[in-house]
């Protein structure tokens, strides 16, 4: 019972806080801050608690809440919440990033703070609900909670060109959302299931699988829609500009959490339910993801503005996640989930620290900074750690995700070329990450910085800024040093779901004379750290 | 001399309707426009009477009375509007009535 309360509360509490701010019941500024901290803190605590309590060996969903009479039962829509192996780490990550973003907003000293926090809380409740939903319709609905708040927040508190960017980001997000809605509706209609949530759908599909071409079409729609939402290669242009124009907490929530909506959808819904469809689109996805990694990576190197560099960098790292999904194996998908969780943490940390740097040096242009390490050693420390995490150095969570993705790429001979090219991405991210560190913190101090410093003396990271940053960094370190904490929970879920996909993949890539081994045996007892034995070379299978 | 069949009435009705339609589309004097509307409705009346007669069905003739009544009401409203418009804009030509529009 407590678990259900925690789960429901993590959506309801921020929503209630947000509505009370909107309705104007809270006048006192102090109370605004306290309630906002509650609104962000509760989901974080709930997320972490539920993550710890989650039992990785149980089949299916934990902590379920089901309410049926929502009015659209004929379409199969019910209010069904729950966490499973893939969603619980992401749920916890959303809570942590939300708390950090909320604290950053509270201490940012923005005007009309009450409205700002109300919109941010509303968005946060949507994000928590997104990962907690089992029912596909509510999953989509909660994602759309973020649409109007983003529009208003970018327009009111954003950077330059904010009015135009706000409209543009809304148009892109709506386009992606509608296309993916089309895919979801197609799925609903083609699979005549009584309920529109994942367990029922997978049950119905295991009885009667959809035809290959239908699967390909539906998966294609989902891929297009989710791809636009997650900034897959040709559709990525909105993302970096949007993040640059948005205020920092909004960028954190967007790049860190909201972007995972599409990837989460592809892993939870797309590939397990539509394995042949996923296979059909797999080459496309791999090439486009590579475009993300290489092309956007090179664009990132060309950025002189710190915030836009972080934005482009986040788009680049999404390429790795897409690679993991595009491989269509349980190893790839599991690593993608790990990378998603870690990337969410690392990119929001980067945005947070960029804001801190901007506050001290007055600008985002890296050319106008330099030598800040002497004055702000703690900030430098955090920033170096964040950059290393983004690059994918061992010790932080990103490493395990990227490593797993590379391993999964290496499994099939046809994917080895992707492996080679993707490894180049590491070099690219090292280039821009370390160069940023060098330019901002080390080296001679630029004149603009000196001039700015004379007006506003530079102080080191204070407690109010260090608290959210430290929270995220702690989570990253935890993930990096003890990856089993997360991978155990992901493991069983991914293995079960991807049993069909693995089967389809292997049957596609094996020579026809080799019988295909059964789905569960290869990675049932292994964590994603161990390499599954390459099946093609074992003649004993005959 | 051939007998007058419903086809002839149909042709007449279509002609009247067509002339009226063209009148509405082309003419600029609003009064003439209203008259063209009436012409269209009367063309329809002709067709109705013809079909009613040929099919020995009274419904058509009944319909004619309804149409005439409605046409009268419509023209009353239309003329009232025209008078009010003239008082305001001192013109009944459609090109002078152009306040609306982008």
């Amino acid at each position, binding site marked *: 019972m407590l678990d259900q309360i925690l789960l429901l509360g993590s959506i309801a509490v921020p929503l209630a806080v947000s509505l009370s701010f909107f309705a104007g019941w809270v006048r006192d500024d102090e109370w605004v801050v306290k309630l906002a901290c509650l609104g962000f803190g509760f989901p974080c605590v709930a997320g972490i608690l539920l993550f710890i309590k989650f039992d990785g060996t149980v089949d299916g969903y934990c902590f379920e809440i089901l309410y049926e009479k*929502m*009015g*659209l*039962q*004929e*379409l199969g829509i019910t209010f069904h919440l729950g966490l499973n192996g893939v969603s619980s780490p992401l749920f916890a990550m959303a809570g942590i990033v939300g708390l950090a973003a909320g604290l950053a907003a509270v201490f940012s000293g923005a005007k009309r703070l009450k409205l700002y926090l109300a919109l941010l809380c509303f968005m946060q409740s949507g994000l928590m609900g997104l990962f907690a939903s089992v029912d596909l*319709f509510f999953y*989509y*609905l909660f994602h*759309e*909670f973020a649409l*109007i708040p983003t*529009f208003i927040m970018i*327009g*009111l508190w954003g950077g330059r060109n904010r*009015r135009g960017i*706000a*409209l543009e980001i809304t*148009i892109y997000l*709506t386009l992606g959302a*509608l296309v993916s*809605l*089309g895919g979801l*509706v197609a799925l*609903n*209609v083609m699979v005549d299931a009584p309920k529109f949530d994942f367990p029922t759908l997978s049950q119905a599909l295991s009885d009667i699988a959809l035809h290959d071409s239908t699967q390909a079409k539906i998966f294609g729609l989902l891929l297009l829609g989710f791809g636009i939402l997650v900034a897959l290669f040709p559709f990525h242009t909105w993302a970096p500009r949007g993040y640059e124009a948005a205020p920092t907490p909004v960028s954190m929530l967007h790049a860190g959490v909201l972007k995972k909506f599409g990837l989460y959808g592809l892993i939870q819904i797309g590939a397990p339910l539509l394995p042949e469809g996923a296979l059909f689109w797999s080459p496309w996805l791999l090439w486009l993801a590579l475009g993300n990694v290489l092309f956007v990576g090179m664009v990132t190197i060309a950025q002189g503005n710190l915030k836009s560099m972080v934005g482009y960098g986040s788009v680049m790292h999404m390429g790795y996640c897409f690679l993991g999904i595009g491989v269509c194996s349980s190893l790839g998908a599991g690593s993608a989930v790990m990378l998603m969780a870690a990337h969410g943490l690392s990119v929001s940390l980067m945005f947070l620290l960029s804001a801190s740097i901007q506050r001290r040096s007055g600008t985002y242009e890296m050319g106008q900074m330099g030598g800040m390490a002497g004055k702000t050693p703690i900030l430098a420390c955090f920033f170096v750690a964040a950059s290393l995490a983004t690059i994918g150095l061992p010790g932080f969570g990103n490493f395990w995700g990227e490593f797993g993705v590379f391993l999964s790429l290496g499994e099939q001979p046809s994917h080895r070329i992707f492996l080679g090219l993707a490894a180049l991405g590491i070099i690219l991210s090292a280039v821009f990450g370390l160069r940023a560190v060098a330019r901002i913190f080390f080296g001679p101090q630029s004149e603009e910085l000196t001039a700015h410093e004379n007006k506003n003396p530079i102080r080191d990271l204070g407690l109010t800024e260090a608290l959210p940053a430290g929270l995220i960094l702690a989570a990253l370190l935890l993930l990096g040093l003890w990856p089993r904490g997360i991978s155990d929970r992901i493991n069983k879920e991914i293995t079960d779901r991807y049993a069909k996909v693995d089967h389809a993949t292997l049957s596609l890539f094996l020579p026809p004379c080799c019988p295909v081994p059964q789905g569960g045996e290869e990675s049932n007892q292994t964590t994603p750290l161990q390499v599954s034995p390459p099946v093609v070379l074992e003649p004993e299978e005959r | 001399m051939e007998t007058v069949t*419903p086809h002839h009435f149909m042709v007449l*009705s279509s002609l009247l*309707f067509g002339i*009226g339609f063209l009148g*509405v589309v082309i003419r600029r004097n*609003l009064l003439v*426009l209203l008259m063209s*509307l009436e012409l*269209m*409705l009367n063309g329809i009346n002709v*067709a109705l009477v013809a*079909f009613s007669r*040929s*099919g*020995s*069905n009274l*419904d*058509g003739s*009944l*319909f004619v009375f*309804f*149409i005439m009544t*409605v046409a009268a*009401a*419509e023209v009353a409203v*239309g003329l009232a*509007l025209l008078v*009010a*418009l003239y008082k*305001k804009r001192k013109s009944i030509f459609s090109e002078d*009535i152009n*306040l*609306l529009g*982008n």
Partner: protein
Amino acid sequence: MILGLELFGMKDSSSGRTGVIAIFFQSVLFVGHLLDYLFWHHSAALNFFSDMISQGLQAEVMRSFFLLSSLLVSIIGHRYLCRKGLKSGEFHHLTMLATAGLMLLCQSNHFLMLFVALETVALCFYTLVAYNRDSAKSLEAGIKYLIFGALSSALLLFGIVLLYGVGANPEAWGASYPGHEFMDPLSFQYLGNLMSENPDNLMLRAGVVLILAGIAFKVGAAPFQIWVPDVYHGSPLPITAFLGVSSKAAGFFVLLNLVNGPFEGMSEFLLPLLGFVATFTIFFGNLAACAQRNVKRMLGLSGVAHAGYLLVAVMASMQFAGDDDRAIWVLFFYLFVYLLASFCVFGVMGLADLPDENEHEFSHYEDLAKKSPWAGFVLVSGIASLAGIPPFAGFIAKLLLISVAYEAKLYLSLTAMVIGVVISIYYYFGWMRAIALPRPASFEDVEDAPDPWAGLSKTGFMKVVLVLLTVASIVLGFWQGPFGDVF
């Protein structure tokens, strides 16, 4: 029964008190009708007037719709008339008469009844649009509406006559000729039989096309939507709302009745035609709305786009089998949601105190969210519901529409709809941007125009009504209760 009650809408006095009496009367009527509908379930379709009027379940729903709509129009209209100093007697008289006509229109089962009711409504509207006799724009809108309306009535009538022509001819009937005494060639049932027998008859086809053309005018579908921006621009605000909601709803219900009743035999012919019209309408409405500066014109064209979406629903209803009327209920739900959202928007627009009340520009709404937060919130939720953003009811309506269209395999129209919704985000959010976000610093010295929102404090009753509408919009976005049960 209730059918007779609405005909008591005849009040002739012209004092200001009439407004309050009219509102009271209409709310009583609405509540009474709703109770009647909910508690005494009339399941069988009753026929009156020798089969000219039928009173089935769907007609009951539409009647409550029209009553609610006219109630809200009276409320908005009352405030408008008080401010403008116009006589209010005829206004309420005419709106109630128009509502009565609309209700009869929805229950008509015979082309004669259809025509009479349609003309009643049209005449009332011609007068209402031109109600503000001191404003040349209002008169101009009225005369434009009259000309286009009369033209379309004539087209409709010619179509009916063509149908009659075939129907009165005994040889054309074939097997289903009901016998000389029973023949009523303008009734929907008989015509339905006739058309199933002869779907290829050229005259029948021409008649059907002309009738649909007449209806498409009322609804604002392309290529008959030219009147929409001008008439919406010039007419008084409550009448714009009335037009946009009731007239459109009536047109769609009649279209639904026609294509599922008499014209059912012609479905293969009508479906591609309607599909083309729907696609054209959606694109035209959305693209033209992007270019508008004046808010009322933009709302008119966005209404055209919504008409396009509803046409897709009508097409879907043609595809389903006889008993499966899911698409019809989707249409009703969409219309109800459209009613709520439109009246939210028009209600707030009505509160503005502009020098020329037709010229609502985006700039008049700058910073509304700061000047009057509740008005800004109501307006934003109305716009969001129209645009189809969760968690408002408009999203559910669009979702239902998408799923029904997908089931009916109308893929092309569905794609057009999705593209249309994305385009519509541009102008809807453009307006929201003006409302919620502060004006960027402008370079020229603009003299301070008098603030249109200064007098907002004295709006107690309107505030309650608008907040109720908004809450209904949001609640329906989450919980569709009785509508869902009907599926």
